[in-house]
């Protein structure tokens, strides 16, 4: 398990991720999560064009410059940095698009992949915000806290994901 390895055991990585709940609860008094940050960033950008969006209570709550909101934006920026550092240390080189997409989408077209990715991102965040959490907030944090609602959300998430991957995508 050296920082120069290309792959660690999923158990070691999972334990490391789970341990992040310690600083999250002790320093920020919140649980790990990622999807709220999309509201914070998306609303701040959109607010430049349409300030009326910022009057919605839900939005105001997410763009308040408090520790919790900015912590989560910093967290997702940190995820990109951490993944970049890990990749550089191991010398892994990635193509601009994962080779699985040619098979999954049945086409090598980059334009098609970009369009599907955009639509997928939209669905992901629209759904996560309806459910009030994503794989991190409901999954990692909600299930660890034995939350009833989060367990229902995670079951629905896997049901939706499995149905979509089996019905709409080709076998990778």
């Amino acid at each position, binding site marked *: 398990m050296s920082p120069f390895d290309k792959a660690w055991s999923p158990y070691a990585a999972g334990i490391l991720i789970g341990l992040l709940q310690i600083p999250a609860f002790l320093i920020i008094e919140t649980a790990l999560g990622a999807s709220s940050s999309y509201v914070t960033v998306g609303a701040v950008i959109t607010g430049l064009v349409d300030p009326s969006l910022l009057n919605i209570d839900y939005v105001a709550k997410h763009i308040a410059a408090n520790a919790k909101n900015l912590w989560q934006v910093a967290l997702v920026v940190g995820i990109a*940095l951490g993944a970049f550092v890990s990749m550089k240390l191991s010398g892994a080189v990635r193509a601009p698009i994962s080779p699985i*997409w040619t098979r999954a989408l049945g086409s090598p077209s980059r334009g098609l992949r970009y369009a599907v990715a955009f639509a997928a991102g939209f669905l992901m965040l629209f759904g996560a915000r309806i459910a009030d959490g994503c794989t991190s907030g409901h999954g990692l944090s909600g299930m660890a806290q034995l939350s009833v609602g989060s367990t229902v959300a995670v079951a629905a998430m896997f049901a939706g994901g499995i149905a979509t991957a089996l019905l709409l995508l080709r076998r990778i």
Partner: protein
Amino acid sequence: MSSVAVGILSGVLMGMVFGFALEKSRVFEPGMIVGQMQLRNWIMLKVFLSAVATGAVVLAILHGFGFVKLQPKAALYAADIVGGLILGAGIALAGACPGTTLAQIGVGYRDAIFTLLGGLVGAVAFSYAQPWLARSLIGTGPKLIFTDLAGIPYWQGALALAVTIAVILVLIERLRPWRDDLGADVDGNGAEKTSQPRSRLAPAE
């Protein structure tokens, strides 16, 4: 330092650890996430359940000794089911979740930039619709946790969950060792795996 500065600094540091672990485990790869959803690759479930079990043990201790308050989300069944299904469909088509999208951008996957943009637009679209959705679909609900329903302390349920997950993971690992799911380029791409036996059938010269 102000609490905002502490939040940003701790967020970046924690995010870097998070991103590092996502990259090392390879779980951020579209091949792993789509593979998991097609039930042919089990690395995502292994990382996910290990993190849940670890979080449960950590919180059992921190909460059991009174250091922290739990922060469960409200149980909103209609929203959890509808939102969860849409989120899951998005995860399968993105080959990513909201957090791993950033890890994909970090390693240079260009389609992940479109996933991120779609995500920002989706979050803004939800924000515009939120006042209406809150009334029509989401509603309000109690912050229910299973141990309250069972009438036992949280730490007992959390440790029981961690033990149950550990047993499940041992069984899954026995059926499917994690190295078998990595793929030749550690991206969960199984194509090389199936093409190797075929090339061996070809004459050596």
